[in-house]
């Protein structure tokens, strides 16, 4: 290996500090979540225990963590599925110009840049004025889509920018109908990116706060619940929750990476040279 230039060490140090900066607080709360039963929200630690994690699984004084977790999970999955389907359709649509495509694209960008609280406020207003019930699965769902769809769509743009149209022509040449082309050629080829869109959609929704604030109705999603807890809970149980949500996120990513890995391995196995002379 060539020797590293000095700038490498400077930048590596900066990078290391940046990581520390990123992880510092997370690690802090991870440590604090193992406070003893007497412990508070700040250092010093008073003993070490799993008390607060146990506490998390018991009835809290206020709120309903697991109920809101369940709602967030369901909502996340709903948003994820919708985002994947709608973004793929949108991505396909945008490959050709159509009337109003420019306007629609600008709307997508607007959707990305308009502050969340405005969407939240607006959707809440519309629903109340129209006399519709505000519920996380209707108004909350819609408000979140205005956030996940632009991301999904932009990813699809990136994917289709790199997608060789010759694949589709080859499929048509082989007699595939438009639907068969999408089903047997386009979708399998872009599948890994779809997983990515799904993962993105899920986490954006799962973590969305501002857009859900005024659109979730009488039942909280997890971020709202956590928001409530930050003002209503005075024990390290909230840190335990934080640690647990982090772990959960890591599990989701892990599952995602594993899926990709397995898919890649399965493909590779199909045609490996193992045990064969070339």
């Amino acid at each position, binding site marked *: 290996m060539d020797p590293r230039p000095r700038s490498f060490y400077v930048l590596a140090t900066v990078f290391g500090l940046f990581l520390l900066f990123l992880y510092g607080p997370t690690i802090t709360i991870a440590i604090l979540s193992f406070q003893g039963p007497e412990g*508070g*929200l*700040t250092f010093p630690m008073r003993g070490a225990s799993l008390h607060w994690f146990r506490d998390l699984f018991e*009835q*809290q*004084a*206020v*709120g*309903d963590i697991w109920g809101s977790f369940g709602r967030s999970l369901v909502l996340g999955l709903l948003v994820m599925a919708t985002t994947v389907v709608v973004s793929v359709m949108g991505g396909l649509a945008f490959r050709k110009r159509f009337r109003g495509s420019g306007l629609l694209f600008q709307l997508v960008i607007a959707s990305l840049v308009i502050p969340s609280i405005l969407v939240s406020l607006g959707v809440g207003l519309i629903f*109340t004025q129209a006399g519709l*019930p*505000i519920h996380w699965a209707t108004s909350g769902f819609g408000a979140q889509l205005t956030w996940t769809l632009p991301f999904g769509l932009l990813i699809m743009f990136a994917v289709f920018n790199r997608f060789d149209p010759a694949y589709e022509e080859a499929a048509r040449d082989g007699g595939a109908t438009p639907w068969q082309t999408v089903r047997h050629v386009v979708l399998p080829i872009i599948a890994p990116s779809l997983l990515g869109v799904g993962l993105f959609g899920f986490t954006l929704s799962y973590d969305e706060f501002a857009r859900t604030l005024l659109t979730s*109705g*009488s*039942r*909280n999603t997890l971020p709202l619940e956590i928001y*409530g807890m930050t*003002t*209503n*809970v*005075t024990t390290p149980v909230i840190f335990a929750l934080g640690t647990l949500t982090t772990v959960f996120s890591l599990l989701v990513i892990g599952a995602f990476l594993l899926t990709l890995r397995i898919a890649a391995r399965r493909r590779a196995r199909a045609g490996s040279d193992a045990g064969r002379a070339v």
Partner: protein
Amino acid sequence: QEIKDVTLRQFGTGVSNLNEVAQKVKEDLGFTLEMTALDSDAVTQRAATQPDSFDIADIEYWIAKKVWPTGNLQAMDTSKIANYGKIVGIFRDGKLTPESTIAQGTAPHTVGFTSGPGGTDFAAEETGWMTLIPTIYNADTLGIRPDLIGRPIESWTELLNPEFAGKASLLDISSIGIMDAAMVCEAMGEIQYGDKGNMTRDEIDRTMAIMTEAKRAGQFRSFWKTFDESVNLMASGEVVIQSMWSPAITAVKSRGIPCVYQPLKEGYRSWGGGIGLSSSLSGLPLDAAYEYINWYLSGWVGGFLMRQGYYSAVPETSKAFMSPNEWGYWFEGKPAAEPISSPFGDVLAQPGEVRDGGSFHERMGHVACWNSVMDENQYMVRKWNEFIAA
């Protein structure tokens, strides 16, 4: 359909919206109570705008002044309330004792009754139809960290004392915060209010001007919006003096941190909470709701709340659910005979300690004003908003 299949959705602030209550309801009455805890702005908002999202609203009296006229709540027939007669006078004719004077602000009895079923007005005296059934109330004052202050505090003026610059806090709930601010300004002798609970625009402007100036000068460390925020601020030493709620002080103390609920010469600012029923509630769920209310007033909840430092609307019934030691300490202002512990098992006072502020009558007899909604509420709200943003 049986009553135990009923599910009632209740929401309110974290103060009284406790899951223990729901559990006990399930045990004692058999039906399900779903609790949602929100901050008081959100509570107001939901009560006023989303009547279908709840069955029972656990709100404060001053909020009722905003919510009741919307017709989202239904009047309650006092004849169905078993312990109606034992409810303390504050919630009926406004007087703790026959000779008490009624404090400024939205005293609970002024918004406690309506003309009849379907009424959206407030009645001046007991009519047999209540807007809210009182549940919980208290008198608030400043909380301090005696260890960090090291000298006696006697007046509301201390909140703006430059000595505590960067170490003071105020609550950011406009209707309550402005009252605390008014207490301070009045104590400082800067403003003489006609009625702190119903200020004129000019009074509001002057009050906010004083507070804004203090804020710009860095008097405040932080504002708080919920009970526990105030606890955290105090417990972590970020703040040494702030407007505070009694149980919040209890909570700080339970961590072994010295904290005093400081009686002040100008008196207390008081508040009261109650339960209202959604106007859409009828039939079996409505029966369940009445059953719930009667159960609420029958003592267990009262004891549960009183042992945290609040007062019950029907103290007599609660007495049965408290030990004589607890009753003596919490209600009568006597020194504790044995260690006093909270319902959650934290030790709050050692033998010999006396409750800050003394007995029930000592406290509730020195109320200077009630949390309220003013005629100029909207103007006040905007000014408050400006103050927070300033």
